[in-house]
């Protein structure tokens, strides 16, 4: 009797471990394959050149466009999200308004990217007349990442010990002075980790940008100009089959970006945990 239970356990644990290995191998397979096929195509001309001949697709304009998009999106979403999170955490009681905001934020987090894209097309593009532009893309992307920023900022604020706030208030500071001077600083690593997550989301976003940022292959020169990001470029290369090498190299660049962001986010998150324990 005992032997059969031991047998069952051995088999079950074997299967479970194998499945866990499958998860890790999927990751290694994807990264490894893209790296293997993409590294040969990754030369300086590719990174710093501009697309001319479709077989020699340089990605500098796309990289720049991605950078501009990320910067403008953060400029919009960070203040909005952080202030909103401060309100939820520090200024309000758990009344109907707060509940409404939380439900709205949760739902917003679940909206598919393509629906965000449609919204951007109709609202920012047509109604506000922004057309296909960096402005439209950034506005749309900022709504996409708003829930992430709100959530991570709220968690970061929550991890700051109460004693900090109480001490500051006891010394006569107003609530805003307390937040500005005492609470924000230790919350910063958590907020930055959330920012890294959001950057990753913006970099990887395609469906929401298709009809808002556009897909021109030049570098963006103004806020009303349009141009494709790295992810969009990969999609176009893959969909139209123009340059398999270029596609692999672009995919590799994207994966490398994600890895860097991930490492940075992890480093920040662990710093946040060490600091918040006092």
């Amino acid at each position, binding site marked *: 009797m005992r032997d059969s239970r031991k047998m069952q356990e051995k088999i079950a644990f074997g299967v*479970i471990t194998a499945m866990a290995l499958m998860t890790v191998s999927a990751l290694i397979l994807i990264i490894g394959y893209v790296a293997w096929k993409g590294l040969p195509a990754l030369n300086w001309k590719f990174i710093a050149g501009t697309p001319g001949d479709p077989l020699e697709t340089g990605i500098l304009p796309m990289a720049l466009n991605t950078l501009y998009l990320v910067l403008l999106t953060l400029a919009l979403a960070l203040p909005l999200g952080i202030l*909103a999170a*401060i309100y939820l955490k520090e200024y309000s009681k758990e009344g109907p308004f707060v509940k409404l905001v939380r439900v709205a934020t949760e739902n917003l987090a679940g909206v598919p*990217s393509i629906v965000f894209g449609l919204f951007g097309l109709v609202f920012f593009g047509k109604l506000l007349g922004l057309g296909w532009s960096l402005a439209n893309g950034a506005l749309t992307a900022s709504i996409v990442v708003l829930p992430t920023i709100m959530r991570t900022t709220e968690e970061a604020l929550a991890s700051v010990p109460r004693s900090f706030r109480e001490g500051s208030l006891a010394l006569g500071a107003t609530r805003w002075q307390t937040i500005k001077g005492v609470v924000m600083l230790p919350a910063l690593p958590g907020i930055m980790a959330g920012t890294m997550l959001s950057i990753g989301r913006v970099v990887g976003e*395609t469906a929401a940008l298709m*009809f808002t940022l556009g897909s021109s292959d030049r570098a963006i020169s103004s806020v009303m100009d349009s141009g494709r990001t790295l992810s969009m470029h990969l999609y176009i290369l893959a969909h139209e089959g123009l340059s398999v090498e270029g596609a692999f190299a672009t995919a590799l660049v994207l994966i490398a970006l994600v890895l860097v962001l991930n490492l940075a986010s992890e480093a920040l998150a662990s710093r946040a945990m060490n600091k918040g324990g006092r």
Partner: protein
Amino acid sequence: MNVRKTTGYYIVDPEPRQKRASDALTAEAEKRERPIRAMLALAAFISVAAIVLITIMVFREAWPAIKSQGLLNMITGSSWKPTAAKPRFGLLPMIAGSSAVTLLALAIGVPIGLASAVFSAELAPKWAQSAMKRSAGVLAGIPSVVYGFFGLMVVVPAVRLLGGTGMSVLSASLVLSVMILPTIIGVSEAAIRAVPDDYRQASLALGATKWQTIKNVIVPAAKSGIVAAVVLGVGRAIGETMAVILVAGNIPVMPSGLLSAVRTLTVNIALEMGYVRPGTLHYSALFTAAAVLFAFIMAVNLMVRAITRKAR
């Protein structure tokens, strides 16, 4: 001093609070804070405004098609021919496509994800736990286009060996299953770790093996968290566009088998939005597809809330 007598004992009401000098200062501080509080509340309200505007926009643009074709007709119509002489706007092929791809992705992804979560929470040494966490984290961050591209380059040729073009339900589901792994693992693992240690100790004390404990005690106790994880995975899979568009074949017909090409609601919108003219019925029909998608995801979100609330 106010003394009340109730049945059995006396209650002494506390003196009303004396006015202090600091009361004026507090009142003034609160008044100075009022504009700040208003600005912050406005920032918080933006979320609400965004979701409301999105909902209004989707249903407003979808309305012409719904009025002209009838919602029921569109949902049950199995013929999508928007550019034909007599246009047909049946969404059923895409609804079936989304459902098939999602269900199969779940069938593959949930067992593997749940097993990985169990492994990480119950079986793995510390180094393996952090390796799993990192892997899940990186998998979660990889852009969907990259998944789609990998699917196109590796999964599709592999599936082609089984027959057909390779662009199929099977390919899309395989790609999606990897994409939902981090979601399933993350939430399930949290749920499993949240099971109180007493449960484990009690089960082991009664003589159960570790596996029996996991199977009969821990996983059932974490059930609502695991269900929430699955539902979140559903939401993710259904909303995916870029990973699917490169591997699924995108023919708007009812899927006839694992190897048949399929088009999901999301892909339908993405592919055709590029060449519709606004104001036409075709344009509006695409928004109807978006509305169906949107309604489904809102329902999924409500389910998650209900499940997690029950757990609390």
